[in-house]
């Protein structure tokens, strides 16, 4: 009968093309060595040229002990390579990778309100989601979104992204000349300077709204892989 609770000081397991030794470093070196002798003695020629991983579980330190065991294994049983178990990845990274691999966006219900056409003076578009408009937003119109606002055309109306208080939202337009910009609780009025027709976006930095060239400072370039919103 196998007793799981009082584990032996050294346990051996076949892993891939080698072996995985789990040892309890609280035992003395002599005990560990004799246990290793026992186990590897049974393996006989199978141990020759094998690669071995020594795992001490969650225990820290014991580097000297492990080094001595390593050379002992190599010299006594002609093991080719002794290594430590690979570092475990942090949990969030692992989760994102998994999501990436499973193409999570296939089952994603969109958080985006996507419209096409001209938003004319006097029209008001409100959504608790992100808003994408394929067309122009004319002066005298209003757009209010819970998240980002993206205009694939000229933006010349009044816009409020991140309603009511999400200051991480952005407002993007291919031609950015709104009369009034609000992101979360921060407000800025439009600028009356010479029109530059280039893709720009507004975001909040140090409690002020800043307009940046999208092609030069793309805020999403930092993101390592695509993420559904």
């Amino acid at each position: 009968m196998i007793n799981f609770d009082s584990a032996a000081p050294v346990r051996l397991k076949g892993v891939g093309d080698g072996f995985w030794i789990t040892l309890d470093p609280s035992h003395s070196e002599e005990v560990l060595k004799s246990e290793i002798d026992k186990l590897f003695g049974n393996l006989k020629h199978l141990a020759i040229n094998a690669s071995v991983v020594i795992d001490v579980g969650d225990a820290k330190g014991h580097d000297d002990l492990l080094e001595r065991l390593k050379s002992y294994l190599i010299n006594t049983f002609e093991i080719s390579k002794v290594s430590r178990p690979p570092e475990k990845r942090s949990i969030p990274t692992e989760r994102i990778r998994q999501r990436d691999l499973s193409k999570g966006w296939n089952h994603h219900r969109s958080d985006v309100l996507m419209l096409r056409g001209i938003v004319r003076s006097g029209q008001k578009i409100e959504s608790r989601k992100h808003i994408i408009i394929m067309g122009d937003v004319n002066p005298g119109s209003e757009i209010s979104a819970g998240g980002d606002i993206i205009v694939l055309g000229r933006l010349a109306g009044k816009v409020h992204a991140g309603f009511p208080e999400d200051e991480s939202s952005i407002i993007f337009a291919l031609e950015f000349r709104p009369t009034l910009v609000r992101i979360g609780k921060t407000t800025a009025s439009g600028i009356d300077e010479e029109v530059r027709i280039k893709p720009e976006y507004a975001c909040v930095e140090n409690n002020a709204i800043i307009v940046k060239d999208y092609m030069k400072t793309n805020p999403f370039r930092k993101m390592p892989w695509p993420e559904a919103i």
Partner: protein
Amino acid sequence: MEGKVIVVTSGKGGVGKTTATSSIGAALALEGKRVAIVDMDIGLRNLDVVMGLENRIVFNIVDVVLGKCKISQAAIRDRRIENLFLIPASQSDNKDVLSSAGVERVANELRKEFDYVIMDSPAGIERGFQNAVVGANEAIVICTPDVSSVRDADRVIGILYSRSLTPKLVVNRIEPARVERGEMLSYEDVLEVLSIELLGLVPMDEHVLISSNTGTPLVLQNDSKAGHAFKRIARRLNGEADLPIEVPTHKNSMWKKISKTLGFK
């Protein structure tokens, strides 16, 4: 065949709705069509003055809609242009006397008797405007190259679309010299914002003031640039959709263009 009811509107006041209505109406009548011009600006009657017919008014559009008279009694025949009729507004009532259903019924009756019924809408987007639009098949939006006029036109265009009317645009009072100096929006700027079909471009013309005050139709004055532009607009409305749009220029700029093409600077 039934005629068309065309509403002329702008949102903003003073951009030339009344001038455009009378000029386009007169030009269509000169093309040989039977035309009725209807003043829907109840309480602020102007069209009769512009057309020089103010002293011949007996009945008006309110009387027609309320059933107090027949259309033929209210329609005033123009003496100078054949087949041109005016149905004036009432000066004493206000815009609430008319019901949408009543206007729609009259519009349908007018459609049977005339080739073109041109309705002059009041400024604004309230009751009076709604009444003017209710019976229309087509809409013409007048706008001047001002930021405020463009914005109001934009609003009106949105409302017209919501009523399944596809408006066409006339840009009025273009001053080529000012456009060239960058003091005025160009018609391209206006079109870029409004993005609807362009029906015509009308230059600033002092003949408009004179003809409005003397009550002579603009299109009868041969040397009027605006009258010429309105004639072309009427031809475009009357089936000649391919008639090219003339862009107003001033003499200086003509010479500039010529010297540019010849390579002088």
